[in-house]
């Protein structure tokens, strides 16, 4: 017995949509760069959940392999992004994104 027999696919679609929107809300709502990063991770995970749901409802393992690649991309993104964040903190002494307006037109 698994989720597939008892739970409609739409519920998973709805759940990952809500999680994705919460991630978007976090990016728009907060000014701390670390929290914004975490919200981006949340969005990536919502997409992962969607891919896994489709993969197991359609009995196709390709969706789950995509999730591997998304994890690799997420790890690379986090590594470089947090290194950049450290540099920003060293130069401006804050993690507030509003201090990074030098390139703003």
């Amino acid at each position, binding site marked *: 017995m*698994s*989720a*597939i027999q*008892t*739970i409609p696919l*739409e*519920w998973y*679609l709805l*759940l990952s*949509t*809500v999680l*994705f*929107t*919460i991630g*978007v809300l976090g990016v*728009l*709502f*907060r*000014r*701390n760069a*670390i*929290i914004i*990063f*975490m*919200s981006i*991770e*949340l969005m990536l*995970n919502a997409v*992962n*959940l969607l891919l*896994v749901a489709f*993969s*197991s*409802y*359609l*009995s*196709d*393992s*390709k969706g*789950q*392999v995509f999730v*591997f690649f998304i*994890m*690799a*991309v*997420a*790890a*690379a993104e*986090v*590594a*470089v992004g*947090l*290194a950049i*964040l*450290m540099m920003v*903190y*060293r130069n401006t002494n804050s*993690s*507030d994104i*509003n201090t990074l307006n030098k390139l703003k037109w």
Partner: protein
Amino acid sequence: MITTYLFYLLSFLAIMFALMVVFSKNPIHSVLYLVLAFFTIAGHYVLLNAQFLAAVHIIVYAGAIMVLFLFVIMLLNLNKETEPHKSVWLKASAAVASGSLLVVLVGSLKGAAGIQSAKTFDASIGLIENLGQTLFNDFLLPFEVSSILLLSAMVGAVMLGKKSIK
């Protein structure tokens, strides 16, 4: 029956923890709530018969990436409440924007109603053998490209991190 209740429980917890990540004042609390949200998502993977992915998800996200976030917060020394608040207008517009995004996305889910799930249900999809077969036969090029991506991430992180030591 049990799986339905588990789905409700895990979904409720996932959404609640995600909201706590966004709205908690202390960044360390945010990180810890994010760990909990990742655990609930791993629970969903188990429900969806993606067992190996659940294990990998916990290893990578809850294990590695969260450690990295905690390290950064420790390094940044954020114990004082430094985050200046956005103006009420900006917060309201953020809420309105993401709310309308939610409405649009949910509206677009109507198109998914016609999706038929597979006739023969295969419980072994999430097993490591099947994933390995797909990964190493159909997704060979992305696999090799991802190693280049990891290499470039390594070089970038060392470049940025080393510079600030000196």
